[in-house]
């Protein structure tokens, strides 16, 4: 059991009022709030030991380098990577996926090759592959979803053959909330010689993730969805793949030796980190990892499961409310829904007037919404600091909205 009251005291923003009502923040799937521990680590760096990292021979630079590289070790152990060299710092999940598309993709994908995606992907795990496929004459294939919001795994064997060079899929849908059986898909991908990339943006902040256990070749995730700052994300990659991949961006820090007409590359992980990195954001992410680890990812997942099950029960009792996606036991802390025929933008706006922050729209998953026959949905998402009382506030506010909008 989480001590949620204590956790909430770590997040000063949760005390604020919106439109004269206590804030109920239900949009952590888009970006989470930040605890004092993360804010303090970042402020401390700026106040006490900030300088550019790597190659500085003076104290401040050494201290900053040490903190920044320590953050990498924390991330490596958080997802149980074999080595720190497998942790590349990027800006976010999107950049991590693009890094793979531009480097591994450009050297391994050719005409007629296939990239297998799923119908529930976020745009960030679709568009980079479209760009690559257009450039290389490759083909995108999509694993369909069932009407209940699961991946149609019965179709996996049909779609997986030796033409498939990459399988890229989310570990948890940001709309349906569905938790995906990653291991099973990775194993099948490997059987046909394909590489498996997992979009961990929604999963890594919310449940234990062990890359060695999952067996995936790449895992992408963002710091800002896991109590860390914006501007820092992670690409985990298996070392032998990263070793043979060409660099992504060229510039300082990623080189060993620069001649006038050519250069040689730095060791992993810096080969993929050109230019001054997001130093303080990296240190902030390290603090976020410490924070989540101390609370425990198992406990966080269990708490979210409990709140989501309760919220689904409350919401589905409202006349005219339809939740998309599977039952609570198969999902993470995300509930997307439609309510009567109220447009999601009106709904989110009316809820905001009650102090409740939810997201409305296609949630960067237009193909999925088209598959569901919807233009947009309203999404409430929960994290370690949310409570069942907040689910009550949401349900009560929806009842009020129904009365106001009428008809």
């Amino acid at each position, binding site marked *: 059991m989480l001590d949620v009251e204590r956790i909430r005291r770590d997040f000063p923003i949760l005390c604020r009022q919106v*439109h004269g009502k206590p804030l109920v923040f239900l949009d952590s799937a888009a970006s989470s709030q930040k605890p004092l521990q993360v804010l303090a680590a970042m402020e401390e760096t700026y106040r006490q030991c900030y300088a550019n990292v790597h190659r500085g021979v003076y104290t401040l630079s050494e201290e900053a380098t040490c903190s920044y590289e320590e953050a990498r070790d924390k991330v490596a152990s958080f997802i149980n990577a074999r080595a720190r060299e497998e942790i590349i710092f990027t800006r976010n999940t999107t950049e991590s996926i693009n890094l793979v598309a531009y480097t591994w993709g450009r050297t391994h994908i050719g005409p007629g090759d296939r990239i297998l995606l799923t119908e529930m992907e976020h745009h960030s795990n679709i568009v980079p592959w479209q760009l690559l496929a257009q450039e290389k004459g490759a083909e995108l294939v999509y694993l369909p979803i069932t009407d209940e919001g699961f991946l149609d795994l019965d179709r996996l064997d049909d779609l997986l053959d030796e033409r498939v060079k990459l399988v890229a899929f989310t570990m948890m849908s940001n709309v349906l909330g569905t938790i995906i059986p990653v291991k099973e898909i990775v194993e099948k991908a490997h059987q046909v010689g394909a590489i498996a990339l997992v979009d961990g943006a929604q999963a890594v902040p919310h449940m234990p993730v062990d890359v060695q256990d999952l067996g995936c070749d790449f895992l992408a995730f963002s710091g800002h969805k896991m109590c860390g700052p914006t501007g820092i994300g992670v690409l985990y990659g298996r070392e032998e793949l990263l070793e043979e991949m060409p660099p992504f961006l060229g510039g300082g820090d990623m080189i060993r030796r620069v001649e006038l007409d050519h250069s040689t590359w730095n060791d992993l992980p810096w080969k993929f980190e050109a230019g001054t990195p997001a130093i303080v954001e990296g240190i902030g992410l390290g603090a976020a990892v410490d924070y989540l680890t101390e609370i425990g990812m198992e406990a966080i997942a269990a708490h979210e499961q409990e709140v989501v099950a309760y919220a689904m029960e409350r919401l589905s009792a409202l006349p005219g409310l339809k939740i998309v996606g599977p039952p609570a036991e198969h999902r993470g802390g995300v509930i997307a829904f439609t309510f009567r025929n*109220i*447009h*999601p*933008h*009106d709904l989110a*706006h*009316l809820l905001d*007037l009650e102090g409740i922050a939810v997201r409305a*729209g*296609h949630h960067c998953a237009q193909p999925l919404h088209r598959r569901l026959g919807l*233009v*947009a949905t309203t999404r409430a998402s929960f994290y370690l600091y949310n409570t069942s009382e907040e689910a009550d506030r949401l349900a009560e506010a929806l009842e009020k909205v129904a009365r*106001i*909008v*009428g*008809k």
Partner: protein
Amino acid sequence: MASSPYRERVLDHYHHPRHRRRLKAPDLIGEKDNPVCGDRVRIELRVDDEGRVLEAAFSGDGCIISMATASMLVEHVYGRSVSELRRLTQEDVLRMLGIDLGPARLHCALLPLEALHSALEASRE
């Protein structure tokens, strides 16, 4: 919800839209959509030889703000000249609505105006 944009007059236009239909023989047609939220507004006008609006109607789908604004706008254009309506601005529409809208919802209120301007643009050709 004293400061709510969803006040009675707006909801009344949403639930009882004025002139929400298609004209038999429109002289001018303008249509705009917003793929992000799926809102779509079509405005049809019949104008006389002096360029005065004889008849106006709107159709489409969308949120409360865009549909209520379309209803108010169509009511407003009756009897006015095309040249006058061309000068209609964002501020005029917001005054007509009489509510405060943050930047996130502004585009909902402005979609009908864009459709109207597109219809009036067609009259130049």
